[in-house]
């Protein structure tokens, strides 16, 4: 046994765990072997006193002890039985729902952003421009009609250039 401290060596010596070289080294390290031997004898006496006087305390009503313990175990089991279900549900709420909620929120945000942006774009145009852009001109009916749009966002100016206006239906005219 490898000893590090004096306390460990002392205890091993008192309990008869030292032998050979270790024992010789330890004894040589003691300043007064006779005093140490006296203390060793005292440790024996103490050990004997404790062993003789401290008995094993008998448990009165041991059967009742076990009955009480089993009751407690059953009570705990009864209160814990719905726990696995709750736990499963809790874990779904905490992980599964987090994922689903996250995905749904993202989708809602995308849709919302799309509509808001679309609304903004549409709302930024004049009603006349919208009418012109949304108009469909059938080249077979009005082959000369064409529309060009020039937009300067910096100056907040949009120019709509319409050729062949005479061929456009009258309802395309600005109100």
């Amino acid at each position, binding site marked *: 046994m490898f000893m*590090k401290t004096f306390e460990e060596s002392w205890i091993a010596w*008192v309990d008869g765990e030292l032998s050979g070289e270790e024992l010789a080294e330890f004894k040589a390290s003691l300043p007064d072997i006779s005093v140490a031997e006296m203390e060793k004898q005292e440790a024996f006496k103490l050990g004997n006193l404790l062993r003789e006087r401290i008995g*094993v305390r008998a448990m009165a009503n041991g059967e009742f002890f076990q009955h009480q*313990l*089993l009751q407690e175990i059953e009570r705990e089991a009864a209160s814990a039985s719905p726990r696995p279900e709750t736990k499963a549900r809790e874990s779904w709420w905490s992980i599964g729902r987090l994922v689903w909620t996250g995905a749904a929120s993202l989708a809602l945000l995308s849709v919302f952003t799309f509509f808001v942006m679309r609304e903004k774009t549409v709302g930024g145009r004049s009603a006349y421009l919208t009418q012109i852009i949304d108009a469909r001109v059938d080249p077979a009916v009005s082959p000369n009609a064409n529309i060009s749009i020039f937009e300067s966002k910096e100056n907040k100016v949009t120019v709509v250039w319409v050729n062949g206006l005479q061929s456009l239906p009258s309802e395309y005219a600005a109100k």
Partner: protein
Amino acid sequence: MHTEATPAPAEKSDADLVQQCQAGDTAAFDQLVGRYRTRVFGMIYNMVHSEQDAWDLAQDSFLKAWKSIGRFRGQSSFYTWVYRIVMNVTIDWLRKKQVKGSGAEFDDAIQLKEIEPASRTAPKADALPHERMQDQEIRARIDAAIAQLSPEHRAVILMKEIDDMQYHEIAETLECSIGTVMSRLFYARKKLQNLLRDVYENI
């Protein structure tokens, strides 16, 4: 230290009962409790010096053992494993009690007639009244001396001197190194020698 109760031929081993417990068999656990309740209770009583507290702590310890028996892998004996739980529960309780500053360590003097008949320390049935009184006084002195030790020192000296455990078993139970066990034993013995010298020198 007896690490496992020797089962009678018809009785199941601790390992078998543990397996049954792990399958949820409370009757098997009841059998294990029956095997070790006295030793567990006795050790706790020697630590806390109160029958009621020892009862409650033994209940707590066995309940914790039941709850965590699924994690018991059989690397040590069942008793060593339970003992670890018992010591953790008891030392924690003693620490909390010390923090609260409760002064009364003893709630009842030892009743010698309650010592197990099989105990090696069982007194003679025909002890005279004055002898019984002297025995009680000595026991009270010992309890008072042990109560002056820290929970950890108390545990070490009781496991070594009363339960006859080896250093490595104590270390395993208290989850500390063998060196720590020996160091605690050194200081516990020194302190008890100082407190009880007149007792063991005069009997």
